[in-house]
């Protein structure tokens, strides 16, 4: 975040749980972060670590029950999202805040044409006439690289390929010039050339509109190329957070280090077998009383099993939640 500028989104100690037949699932535990205007925050982490649930919690998108935000403060431009009415929230979601969902098929409505789903928010939030909205809708589809955009407005989601559906979602999220874009794995279904085009588009919008972005991805190549800062999630918590260059140069958390080592590269030598992180992800059944990574960690020692580490500052705007000190390679004293 540029120094001094107030964050557009400021999240403190967010906790979200699900109440299920088999008990509670502590999906998000004391998560805190902020995003400044025009900034791009990358979010990476293990599958099931709470990335999507965190972002859905922010905009009241989780059905309750079973989901419940048990504590935390979510400030959007200084106002508390948790205190907003359903109408205010709806206004925020379609207008100021664009959301790209991880699973396009569940968030696109199968019974309406793609054109309808793009035109509607443009009429409601941007006050466009039907004709102007249709023209703008075609322009948006074209911007995300859908050929023959005008004609395809009258097609239904199932007539699009997986990656095209994802791009339709991106077009809808960008339709109303959002100030904040929350994109949950927005390019997983896209090949590298179209991914590059989308990234270019998002860069332009950041510059032109000062749009802030939270970009969830498991693609560390994408993070390396676009993020200003990165936060790493594991077991419902933020385990590490740093500016992008610093994170790649000096990963501190054993999970982050293991993650960086598992990435296959197109230019490197080809390994006979891919590296993966051994062991199972943690159970989220209870609020963790130990480090969630302890069972899989190569540096684990007694303290990790009885206490859940808090995030501590390691300089260079970098913090890590770990009792082991990656620099001295010894337990951290403090």
């Amino acid at each position, binding site marked *: 975040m540029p120094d001094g500028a107030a964050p557009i989104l400021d999240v403190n100690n967010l906790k979200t749980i699900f109440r299920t037949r088999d008990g509670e699932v502590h999906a998000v535990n004391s998560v805190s972060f902020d995003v400044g205007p025009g900034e791009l925050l990358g979010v990476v982490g293990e599958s099931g670590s709470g990335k999507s649930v965190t972002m859905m919690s922010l905009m009241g998108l989780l059905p309750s029950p079973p989901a419940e935000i048990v504590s935390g403060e979510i400030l959007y431009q200084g106002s508390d999202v948790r205190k907003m009415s359903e109408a205010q929230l709806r206004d925020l979601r379609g207008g100021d805040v664009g959301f790209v969902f991880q699973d396009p098929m569940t968030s696109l409505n199968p019974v309406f044409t793609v054109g309808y789903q793009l035109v509607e928010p443009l009429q409601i939030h941007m006050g466009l006439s039907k004709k102007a909205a249709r023209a703008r809708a075609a322009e948006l589809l074209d911007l995300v690289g859908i050929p023959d955009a005008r004609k395809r407005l009258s097609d239904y989601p199932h007539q699009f390929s997986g990656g095209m559906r994802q791009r339709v979602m991106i077009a809808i999220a960008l339709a109303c010039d959002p100030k904040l874009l929350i994109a949950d794995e927005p390019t997983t279904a896209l090949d590298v050339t179209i991914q590059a085009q989308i990234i270019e588009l998002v860069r332009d919008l950041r510059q032109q509109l000062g749009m802030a972005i939270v970009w969830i991805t*498991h693609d560390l*190549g994408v993070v390396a190329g676009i993020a200003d800062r990165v936060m790493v999630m594991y077991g419902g918590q933020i385990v590490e957070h740093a500016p992008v260059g610093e994170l790649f140069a000096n990963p501190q958390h054993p999970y982050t280090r293991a*993650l960086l080592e598992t990435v296959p590269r197109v230019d490197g030598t080809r390994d006979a077998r891919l590296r993966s992180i051994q062991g199972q992800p943690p159970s989220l059944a209870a609020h963790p009383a130990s480090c969630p990574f302890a069972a899989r960690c190569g540096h684990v020692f007694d303290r990790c099993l009885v206490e859940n580490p808090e995030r501590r500052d390691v300089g260079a705007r970098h913090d890590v939640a770990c009792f082991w000190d990656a620099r001295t390679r010894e337990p951290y004293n403090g």
Partner: protein
Amino acid sequence: MADGGDPRVLVRVDGLKMHFPIHEGLLRRQAGSVKAVDDISFEIFEGETLGLVGESGCGKSTAGRTILRLYQPTEGVIEIDGRDISTLEGTALRDLRPTMQMIFQDPQASLNPRMTVGSIIAEPLSEHHAMNATDRRNKVYELLDAVGLNRDFANRYPHEFSGGQRQRIGIARALALNPKFIVCDEPIAALDVSIQAQVVNLLEDLQEKLGLTYLFISHDLSMVRHLATRVAVMYLGKIVELAPRDALYNDPKHPYTQALLSAVPNPDPKTEAVRERIILTGDVPSPANPPQGCNFCTRCPKVMDRCRVEEPTWRDLGQGRYAACHLLEDA
């Protein structure tokens, strides 16, 4: 692959076309067609992994679905194990299902939201095998273990899972019937790198143990490089290049393959800042209205006059390499 001798062909695709009709107007008259797959031919050898790559919308999923006969092909031949299945219907087709399976791109859409994960995975078992309840449950547990999911998850419903967890449920389901041939449609796109590695290692182990054959559809070129024996590159409904893995990555012949490989990002902010990409410009044509001549002529950095009028033929370049490009024709 069989030891010594020539590898055995398990899947043969010849001149395959899948066109979707476009209907227009009040009477929904057919006004043309989307040529999603437009005349592709290739073979897949027993025990190998053929990678299928290409940009979004080029027809990869449609090709995979048509080969498994989830669609009725518009034209062309599909042979599995020497048997022509392109026109099979009804029970004859259903009887083939256990041998060929698909892992779907869209995990959410392919899992019934009203069924528990256990019953989703067990469904093909009950449909095709006489198995008692205990054996079935044990098999479900075994499959959950295999894809790295907790056994307790068997009683949960799909919406209670993260995107990556759902994808693994689809994989467990596809493996249930010990198929011979699996079309994997972006099976790992939704997974984090560590679990990607876990799933890819699993697919490789199963291949080794059971001699499985894969058509592996993916846009992740680093993963395809790891997994594939040979790679086919698709563009706008056609295959433009096919080659053994190392040959393709070290020395791509087709200008589209070259552009595609140059665009792969690296997990390193330093090299990312200086990497040179071939950025493709020009219109991306629609499969409803492909250009005259070569399908890639509107964006090819090396386009010649001839490419705009004459379609390049699919030629054998030797050493198992094939491509369709006028530049590669021996003078």
